[in-house]
């Protein structure tokens, strides 16, 4: 795979926290390029800095140090409102516990991000219906989350992440709350999205999931310790990390 276009560029990113009077680096000296149509897994034991990296990539947080360019924009210097706009247009979040709005129907959940960009109702509805159809939920559109199975909820969340046609899809342990057969379905959906040209970043601690991805980066104690594109290496790396953690 040859790099075509850089979507994300991280240079000497650091994130420093002070907790109970003691400072520590959750991330340190991270240099990372993510390219168009990358299908990347982020692995590492708990406390390795995965979540912090995810929050930074998702523009939910600011780095303490370093440069973050998303599609050429220096994101770290943007104000909160601009950052909200970036999240809305460029990032599609998928969470472990789905994080759907509980009182809203599947359709309303998927339409939600389009509200913040001011799309008119008809357009919102059309795009949300398309997104739901893409994940195979065209006949569950008017169900509220607790009328849906775990796999269906995650599909709604994926549809919601896709509806804005974001630059990157950012999934945090997307199969963590799902049984094995549903996990396979969701991963197949991710594979499909990758084939369609979507850029995907999946944070996971499951080697099986990481194995499906084309690229795996490993974090340990806030540092990037490996970045490999070989699936065969991935398995041993992921397993190795698991053994260490």
């Amino acid at each position, binding site marked *: 795979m040859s790099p075509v276009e850089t979507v994300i560029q991280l240079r000497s990113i650091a994130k420093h926290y002070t907790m109970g009077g003691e400072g520590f680096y959750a991330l340190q000296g991270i240099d990372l390029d993510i390219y168009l149509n990358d299908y990347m897994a982020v692995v590492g034991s708990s406390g390795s800095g995965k979540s912090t990296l995810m*929050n930074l990539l*998702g523009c*939910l*947080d600011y780095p303490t140090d370093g440069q973050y360019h998303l599609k050429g924009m220096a994101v770290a210097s943007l104000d*909160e*409102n601009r950052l*909200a*706009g970036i*999240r*809305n*247009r460029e990032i599609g*979040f998928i*969470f472990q516990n789905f*994080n*759907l*709005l*509980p*009182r*809203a129907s599947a359709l309303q959940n998927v339409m*939600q*991000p389009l*509200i*913040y*960009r*001011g799309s*008119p109702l008809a357009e919102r509805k059309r795009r949300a219906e398309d997104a739901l159809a893409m994940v195979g939920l065209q006949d569950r559109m008017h169900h509220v989350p607790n009328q849906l199975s775990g796999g269906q909820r995650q599909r709604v969340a994926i549809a*919601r992440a896709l509806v*804005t046609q974001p630059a990157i899809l950012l999934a945090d342990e997307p199969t963590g709350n799902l049984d094995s057969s549903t996990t396979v379905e969701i991963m197949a959906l991710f594979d499909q999205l990758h084939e369609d040209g979507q850029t995907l970043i999946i944070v996971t601690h499951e080697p099986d999931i990481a194995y499906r991805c084309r690229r795996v980066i490993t974090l340990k104690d806030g540092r990037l310790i490996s970045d490999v594109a070989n699936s065969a290496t991935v398995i041993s790396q992921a397993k190795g990390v698991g053994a260490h953690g």
Partner: protein
Amino acid sequence: MANLGFKIIEATRSASQSIAAHGFRSFLTTLGVIIGVASVIGVVSVVQGFSASITQEFDGMGTNVINIESYTPRKASLQGLYASLGYDDLIEIKHRVKGISNVTPTVTIWGSNAVISYRGESTDTMVIGTASTYQKLYAVYPDAGRFFNLSDDKSRRRVAVLGPSIITKVNIKGDPIGQYISISGEWFKIIGIAEKRGKLFGFDQDDFILLPYSTTRALLGGAEEPDISIGLQVDDMQMIEQIKQQLKNVLRRNHNLGKDAADDFKIATADQMLETFNQIIGSTTLVLAGIVGISVLVGGIGIMNIMLVSVTERTREIGIQKALGATRFDILLQFLIEAVFLCLLGGLIGLVLGFGAGSLISSATGLPEATVPLWAVFLAFGFSAGTGLIFGIVPAFKAANLDPIDALRYE
């Protein structure tokens, strides 16, 4: 800001959804606002009902009517000196003041001298002794029979015009005209029945008997002349101020008042009476509105409390919304609109309840029909919306300022 209106619509939709999701809690939350607005509207509707019917009453009386009554200053009354207007004052006015008509004396009798009886049924009422011009001055027209005329008055005829309530009070059977009724032990022939006027302030306005002035004087007997009030009509409204001055001069001369002495009478026009009345109504409304304003304040604090709880409960939702690209302003707007929406809903319920209570009070106590003026409706809604805005701003800011990462992690 082009899509602000659109965002407001969305926020309203989401607000109605979350209000409906906690129906009973929302109801309890707005109860303070409901009670506040209901009491404002209830009070205002009753007071305005009064006001409307009083105004109508004064309109019927005509603005060109002047009333003169004796007035005893406080200091004099402590000394036992009571001012009085007599028939000679009336004569003087008639002769000396030009441009007036229907100059009418009125003497009112209450209590033991006003006991009436008819075939064993006995009750007391208000007996008014007056002249035939009373009819034109105060627009009292007989429903049946006739009013007394000049010759009735001149020859002290024992004739009476009854307020319609008297008929039922002493249970007069058949056609009352031509029958006899006893007033203070003397027999009077009923010659007319005044038209019905209904109740005002809970007072029966039809419970009276009108007698010719001279007859009344005879009925009272005694050497002392009664204190009368004098009503008259100004022919040309342009002249009303000059006529009032002339009346004042005539009465002061007739009463031998010195230069420094205060007037021992009061000259009132219908306009003035209406104005005084409106002032009373106005300040009553204001005071009551102030009191109920406090209850709306209490309601507002309730709203703030529940909105703060609601923000905490929905911390995670707020985190999700922020992750999806909601700005601080989006979240602020959403919670602010929810608070305002909640208050407006309370205001609407309060409006309906208040008007209902007002109408109920009015009809149960025989007060004039309750009316809600448009300004009170706007006031109620303005108040509600204001309460929502003021007490919603703190919870809304709390929600808007949540850190998305912490909010997403919130359990």
